[in-house]
């Protein structure tokens, strides 16, 4: 069978697909095999994959990617409200809208690089967030969040079937999602998104982006106009974000402005860093870990802590539980911040670099390979 890609990539893709599809099985012992959480795993993996196409390949650190996620969500919910509960148009519109917005924001922001680019994207995202809360309330429904109502027009749906009782749920070709179907749909989207990311990484376009990251000045001296390439990368990654936003709306038809806040942009940066910037699988792992621990840690309370530390004698247990309780439950963000700092300080390449270091150590029979593999930049 002729493969569409190098053998190695194909194996990666097949393994990845296997891991994603069998999630309900291997997450069972970890206590995370319920649809709501697994959907989040798939959705945020898409988001992080897309973010990595910009940050990982070109090195441009955007601090405003949540704006595209939010726009995707709003567009999808509007498509549900006005046209149909089918997910295909919702996803299409969301991706297109996020892409259009990204053309504008990207065109302006990419006029600058480095920290200025970060601040420009941040400023644009904050503008979107503030507008969604104030003037655009007729579109976004402000603080109450945009949601489905019983009086939505839903032109296409209602042309074929009478209005049923209660709120409809999203579905594919007239079949409404229930149970694990929503997750499997997101999983398929994630696998496709991974496939495209793989294609981008191995394409000449991806090569160019990496060259821009390593030395933009030299690229322009060799006669390359870097702008269209970075802009394309920006738009593609925003489309991924829009897609993730529409998936959020599909699994739960509700869109609020807090999705666009800059802390949400910070979260996707963290996922990418934690997993490994510039690697394909890293951001996905980062997204899964963060969403998993967020879910596990924030569910912890005093009672569970007492059972966990039950082996300690009474006098010691209380202070230990007292301290530990600051890191779980509502304090989960504190743990997140600490992980963030530790990863950036000690493991800038993220988990993937950690894995690479360990394998290198094992191969060399216990001697760490410090810097031996690193290409020396020719100055």
């Amino acid at each position: 069978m002729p493969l569409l890609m190098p053998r190695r990539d194909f194996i990666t893709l097949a393994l990845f697909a296997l891991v994603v599809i069998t999630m309900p099985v291997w997450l069972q012992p970890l206590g995370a095999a319920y649809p709501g959480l697994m959907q989040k795993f798939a959705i945020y993996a898409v988001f992080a994959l897309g973010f990595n196409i910009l940050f990982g390949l070109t090195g441009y650190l955007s601090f405003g990617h949540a704006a595209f996620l939010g726009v995707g969500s709003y567009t999808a919910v509007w498509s549900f409200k006005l046209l149909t509960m089918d997910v295909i148009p919702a996803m299409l519109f969301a991706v297109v809208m996020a892409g259009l917005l990204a053309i504008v924001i990207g065109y302006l922001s990419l006029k600058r690089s480095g920290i200025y680019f970060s601040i420009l994207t941040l400023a644009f995202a904050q503008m979107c967030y503030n507008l969604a809360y104030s003037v655009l309330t007729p579109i976004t429904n402000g603080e109450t969040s945009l949601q489905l109502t019983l009086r939505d027009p839903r032109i296409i749906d209602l042309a074929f079937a009478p209005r049923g009782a209660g709120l409809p749920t999203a579905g594919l070709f007239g079949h409404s999602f229930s149970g694990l179907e929503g997750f499997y749909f997101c999983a398929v989207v994630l696998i496709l998104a991974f496939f495209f990311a793989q294609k981008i990484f191995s394409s000449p376009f991806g090569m160019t982006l990496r060259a821009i990251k390593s030395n933009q000045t030299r690229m322009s001296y060799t006669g390359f106009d870097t702008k269209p390439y970075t802009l394309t990368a920006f738009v593609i990654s925003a489309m991924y974000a829009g897609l993730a936003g529409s998936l959020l709306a599909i699994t739960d038809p509700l869109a609020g402005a807090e999705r666009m806040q800059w802390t949400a942009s910070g979260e996707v940066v963290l996922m990418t860093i934690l997993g490994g910037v510039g690697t394909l699988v890293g951001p996905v792992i980062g997204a899964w870990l963060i969403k998993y621990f967020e879910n596990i840690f924030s569910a912890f309370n005093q009672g569970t802590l007492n059972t966990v530390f039950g082996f300690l004698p009474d006098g010691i247990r209380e202070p230990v539980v007292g301290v530990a309780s600051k890191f779980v439950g509502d304090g989960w963000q504190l743990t997140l911040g600490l992980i963030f700092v530790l990863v950036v300080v000690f493991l800038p390449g993220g988990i993937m670099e950690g894995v690479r270091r360990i394998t290198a150590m094992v191969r060399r029979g216990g001697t760490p390979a410090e810097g031996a593999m690193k290409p020396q930049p020719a100055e």
Partner: protein
Amino acid sequence: MDAILAQLLNGLDKGGAYALIALGLTLVFGTLGVVNFAHGALFMLGAFCAVTFRELITLETVTTDPTQLSPWGTPLEIRTPLAQTWFGEWGGFLIDYSVPLSILLAIPVMLLIGIAMERGIIRFFYKRSHAEQILVTYGLAIVLQEVVKAIFGPNPISQPMPPALAGAADVGSWIGLGANVVTYPWWRLVYFLFSLGVMGGVFALLRFTTFGMVVRAGMADRETVGLLGVNIGRRFTIMFGLAAVVAGLAGVMYTPLVPPNYHLGMDFLVLSFVVVVVGGMGSLPGAVAAGFLLGILQSFASMNEVKTIIPGIDQIIVYATAVVILLVRPRGLMGRRGMMES
């Protein structure tokens, strides 16, 4: 005329806060070359210095008086603040003026926090990329704000201003506009003057002392100053501490205007970054000018007359200004030529 004057005044105190935070950010960037996303958190820590100080000074002793009964029939509890028992009349005065007095607590605390931050983490990031500096300080900001949340809880804690300064100044009558045409709360006026004072202090330190001269020389060319045998690293560490103090003081005095909660810093951080960029990365006068400019712009944009012409302008004016400035004049209003201009 009076409406314009009123908005101008309204912009001054917010502008003062922006300018102080931006000044600290610029100091850190100009000396150490570090983009500090945790600077907003320092502002927030300063505000919580005021909260802590007030809690300390209002510690009470509770004594029960069995001869008197409260309306519930239990013995009457008499609460006397320790400060009052120790200092008498003076104690009441101390409690009334807890916010300005907490400056005394904030200065050493913020200096220590700043130096600890620089020595503990920031110094390992001088040679790393700006992106990594942003990331580590962003993580640090999350940690700081969550620690504060764990200690003080998620709700805002309001701080009363000294009762003598609670009213409003009739600014209009001072310049002959008639009584009660333009009024301005005393505390905001105090905040504005205070911010001017702190800025003046920082500029005087840099301008008229040997320490300041060395620091300025180091900002211009760190290597040469180092080669001349000056331990410039230590002076830059002190400057980081100083920047933390400036942010902290801005936070302390801001507490009566906005009750501090743990994400106060994040709310100000984005704005003050915008201020720094507008003023010009690394330019101290630029940071101050841009702070006041944006504060005043924002208060004009929130006038109803303006909002009816361009709806929503009050929400985006600051960011829109930043975008325009960055695209038209990348080095900001007063930035040096060639300073981070790419």
